[in-house]
């Protein structure tokens, strides 16, 4: 693994760029080839990741508000994780205080519950 680290980064970056290009040109709402959420299909509930593909599509087209509405968690969490990873590297995650991980886990679980509640402010964030 270590010996191929650079190759891994190059392949990862290429795959990411390809995925983003795909998401930019093909709207997930209009094309059926995208993976779908099994959790949603089975339960009818929105999982914490539901809406991510559409949110990224909107984001790539500069529609931040629409993206935030589809998946606010992704719009906050993804840049935070990517920022830590890019600036301080993988090792930064090992030196993170455990309490931050419990906070992130709680936020994910809370978000999963809230976005499925059938009342006013929460239905706004239903993907």
């Amino acid at each position, binding site marked *: 693994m270590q010996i191929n680290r650079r190759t891994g980064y190059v392949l990862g970056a290429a795959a990411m760029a390809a995925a983003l290009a795909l998401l930019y040109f093909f709207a997930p709402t209009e094309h059926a080839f995208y993976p*779908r959420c099994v959790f949603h*299909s089975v339960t009818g509930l929105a999982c914490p990741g539901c809406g991510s593909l559409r949110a990224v599509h909107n984001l790539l087209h500069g529609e931040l508000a629409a993206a935030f509405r589809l998946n606010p968690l992704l719009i906050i969490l993804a840049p935070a994780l990517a920022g830590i990873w890019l600036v301080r590297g993988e090792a930064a995650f090992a030196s993170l205080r455990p309490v931050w*991980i419990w906070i992130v886990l709680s936020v*994910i679980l809370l978000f999963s519950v809230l976005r499925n509640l059938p009342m006013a402010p929460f239905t706004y964030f239903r993907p």
Partner: protein
Amino acid sequence: MYKILGADQKEYGPVTLEQLKQWVREGRANANTLIQGPDSTEWKPLGTFPELAGLSAAAAPMPPAPGPAYGTATATANVPTYLWQSIVVTLCCCLPVGIPAIIFSAQVNSKLAAGDLAGATSASNKARMFCWIALGLGLVANVIFLMLGMFDTFGKIKF
């Protein structure tokens, strides 16, 4: 034969047990150095190998300081937490299997902070295992659902 991961993050070896012991005596390797055992492809700290543990403890001039040591050092860099991977699989693949991955990932951090390198390595391996299971389940379930045409049960909401 053993393989060793240098401070430069490069792989060295395979080398014999004798050679490895020699390196420990010379201070070129210590209890935190990652080693791949003879029958394994897994990287584990040298201190967790019984055949080397006594030697490295005797050779190590300074044992790790007790108590929290966040952000310190070489030891933490060598045990991956799989935190971002766990979060990604939780959101994208499989919520129920992703959550244990995040929990084990948090344990890597707390055990590293407590100086428990072996415990951290074990938690790290578990986190990685749950990440792969979540990814695998997500992909397999997606393919099955796609083939059976089961996605339209609850309307057309996509991922």
